[in-house]
């Protein structure tokens, strides 16, 4: 039996819950502490936990580095794209009310914040995972005996 049985079993139970909690924090940002950055870091920690327990190669198969690179840029483009969309609809940069000018309860603001927080989520998750991959892929120069 592999020596890390407990870790493997427990993480298999927990990692989906961590990811779910990240999504909860993301959407709860409207009503309490939360939002894109926190959710992104929590989501990234789920992926990093998987990498720590099951190995970097397995993690790279689950979340390939190319996805991560694209994810970083995609998030920034979503955020900037929301701003460009507000430009096109005639307002200043990031003036969310132009998304729903007729609404009385600021629906435009709601959609705008939702979109930019989504962008932040993508960027932060990808950035954290990319940092982890970059550091984790460096070959160690000391053998285990020297430690």
């Amino acid at each position: 039996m592999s020596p890390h049985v407990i870790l493997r079993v427990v993480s298999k139970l927990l990692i989906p819950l961590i990811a779910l909690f990240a999504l909860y924090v993301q959407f709860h940002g409207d009503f309490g502490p939360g939002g894109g950055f926190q959710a992104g870091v929590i989501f990234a920690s789920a992926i990093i936990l998987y990498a720590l327990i099951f190995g970097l190669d397995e993690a790279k198969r689950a979340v390939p580095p190319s996805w991560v690179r694209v994810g970083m840029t995609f998030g920034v483009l979503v955020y900037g794209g929301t701003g460009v969309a507000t430009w096109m609809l005639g307002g200043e940069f990031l003036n969310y009310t132009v998304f729903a000018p007729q609404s009385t309860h600021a629906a435009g603001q709601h959609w705008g914040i939702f979109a930019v927080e989504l962008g932040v989520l993508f960027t932060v998750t990808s950035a954290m995972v990319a940092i982890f991959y970059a550091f984790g892929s460096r070959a160690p120069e000391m053998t285990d005996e020297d430690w």
Partner: protein
Amino acid sequence: MATLFEHFNFVVVIVLMMTGLYVVFASNNMIKKLVGLSVFQTSVFLLYISLGKVVGGQPPIIAEEDLHHAPEAGAGVAKAGADAAHAGAGDVAHGAHEAAEVLYSNPLPHVLILTAIVVGVATLSIGLALVVRTREVYGTIEEDEIDNLDYHKNLEGAAK
């Protein structure tokens, strides 16, 4: 003495700040310098957050009943954050003010700190990447040993 206890948060901030700065100045090891820098930046976060504390403040979301009591509260007012990773504080009311006996806490310092934390994380990650590369190129991360290794190169760049 009483002042010290009243302004306890400032004492903590100052102690952490000076500790962090001292570690940056006095360390030879690159990673220790980064640790000192992180402690220094953390003290700043504590400063902001302790300043922004409103005792008895509620989350700055206007509850339904307040809409009737406080017509000037208006619709959600959000402060547009910076371009860098900005964590939304969501729909947010004004700063700490009393609107029909409801005390709201001030979300602005928290937003500022979130941004500053992200900046700190980015700086730390670049610093660590530099440490890794320095280790690969020089074989050491102690600054005096690095200076020794570069000694002759530096000499030829100096007075002739």
